[in-house]
């Protein structure tokens, strides 16, 4: 069971808060050893999904399996093997960072290697002697990152892991996630920062209004999407010759150039263009952001 290739499984997850339906049937599969980015705007259901995975809240319907276990029946085993960073991190203000981390470590049976904890703190520029009440939002987030990683869990559930961090520390957190993956951990992280998901995730799931609308390899999703091309002709524009090509549509035209949208392969377009004098040919690969926005415009 522990070696199951599927580390996270959600089928038909539903959850309502009063009259508001936060999840309307979430289906997800996260494979062992991958970094899975869970993308969606605020209010889409990312946090609710993660909190159900740890049995912090109970779903109204559907099935959940984490590391092959039912988090409601085997909460201890699931939590012992997971590291969690909440989206809204709050700490005991009266304690120092070191005391807080020691308290969390005590709850885990003192399994963390304290040398590793210190090295994590050093890499993130976190002073262990500071009282939590004197920490900025970014520094609190660093405490959250350290406590999630310090016991080297096999599953990381990170809700907006770089929220409030400056760009340099964000890069360090990205490195730590990469190292966790290299050590064999599975990483499931939510974000609304598309660049981060594009940079880190092997696969991405897009959640919209409580439903997962797309799950795909990050690169496949980008490749599968529409491309844009701008063509400048030597002898005047040749729009009529391009209009019949399947998957190609003309977005705009000027005296000597066309802007085209291409769905799928470009082969037919390039072969058609070869018949004409082309001075310039530029293509734009769509960013994950554009894909994401396309899903939300549907």
């Amino acid at each position, binding site marked *: 069971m522990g070696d199951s290739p599927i580390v996270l499984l959600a089928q038909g997850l539903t959850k309502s*808060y*009063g*009259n*508001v339906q*936060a999840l309307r049937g979430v289906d997800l599969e996260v494979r062992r050893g991958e970094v899975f980015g869970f993308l969606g705007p*605020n*209010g*889409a*259901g*990312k*946090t*609710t999904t993660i*909190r159900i995975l*740890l049995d*912090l*809240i*109970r779903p109204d319907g559907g099935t959940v399996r984490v590391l092959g276990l039912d988090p409601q029946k085997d*909460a*201890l*085993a699931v*939590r*012992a093997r*997971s590291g*969690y960073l*909440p*989206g*809204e*991190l*709050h*700490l*005991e203000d009266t304690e120092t960072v070191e005391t807080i981390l020691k*308290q*969390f470590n*005590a*709850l*885990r*049976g003192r399994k963390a290697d304290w040398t590793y904890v210190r090295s994590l703190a050093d890499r993130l520029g976190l002073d262990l002697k500071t009282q939590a009440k004197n920490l900025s939002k970014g520094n609190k987030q660093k405490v*959250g990152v350290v*406590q999630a990683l310090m016991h080297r869990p096999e599953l990381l559930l990170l809700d907006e892991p770089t929220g409030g961090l400056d760009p340099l520390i964000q890069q360090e957190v990205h490195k730590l996630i990469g190292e966790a993956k290299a050590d064999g951990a599975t990483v499931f992280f939510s974000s609304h920062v598309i660049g981060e998901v594009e940079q880190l995730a092997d696969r991405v799931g897009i959640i919209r209004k409580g439903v997962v609308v797309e799950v795909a390899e990050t690169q496949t999703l980008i490749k599968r999407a529409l491309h844009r091309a701008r063509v400048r002709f030597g002898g005047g524009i040749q729009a009529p010759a391009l209009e019949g090509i399947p998957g190609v549509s003309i977005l705009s035209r000027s005296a000597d150039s066309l802007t085209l949208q291409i769905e799928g392969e470009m082969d037919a377009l390039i072969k058609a263009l070869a018949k004409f004098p082309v001075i310039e040919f530029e293509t734009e690969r769509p960013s994950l952001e554009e894909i994401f926005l396309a899903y939300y415009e549907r």
Partner: protein
Amino acid sequence: MFTIFNQALRRWKWQIVGWGSSLLIIAVYLMWLYKPMVEQQAQLKNLFDAYGKEMLSFFGGTVDIFSAGGYLNFAFFSYVPVAIGILALLLGSGLVVADEEKGTLDLILAHPITRTALFWGRWLALVATLTAVLLLSWLGFAMGLSWTGLDTTAWQVLLPHISLLSILILFGTLALFLSLLLPSRTLAASVTGALLVASYIVTSLASVNDTLEPLNTFSPLKYYQGGSAVNGLDGGPLLSTLGIALLFGVLAWLLFLRRDVRVSGEGNWRLPFLSRKMKAPTTNQAMLW
């Protein structure tokens, strides 16, 4: 559970020091006061006779205040359940919900501890805290016995503390139960506080007004012995009080097991007259979904 117990006790150490040392000082002072009071017995009797019995009922009634039990009741045990009850209900109402309202419970429960261990570990820490506070109070009285003429022993003085502890556990656990039932910790503490004061008034006045006796049957303080316990604990009321406290504890535990842990900023259910606000989620809630 032991880790949870330790962490909770560590968090409440200053409550133990603050409340315990205050009670210790009060106890020493009251023991010091006993001798001068006995010396002025005649004048004091005249003074108390001038008060109405309704007034005296709030200080243990018309029993002989110069006996050991009467004095301890009059000077301390008659009103102290209300005073220390505040500590009990604040600790009880915040046992779980304070962390939830601060937003720290989410992360604690993401660690490998069961909700049962968290709940009962903290409940035991609540009992230990109240016990420690009352032990310091008892220590103050026990120390005073050497120089006062009070006709009692340290063991006998411990008995009303045990009766008091049972009442404090009851109100602390009731506050805990209400905190898991009502929308906020503040409301739970307020309702428990109101019940504590109402119980004190009803039981005090029932000793001089028989018509209040049916109502008094439901008052927890009716089953509190106060200073009279120096002559021996009445096991029935003591066990009943602890039994009801345990019942509230079990109900609260069952509620906690089924609870969706809120994160800071999220609301619980609201009172009907605020229901219009429920229709739209707060910005914080929306951000967290």
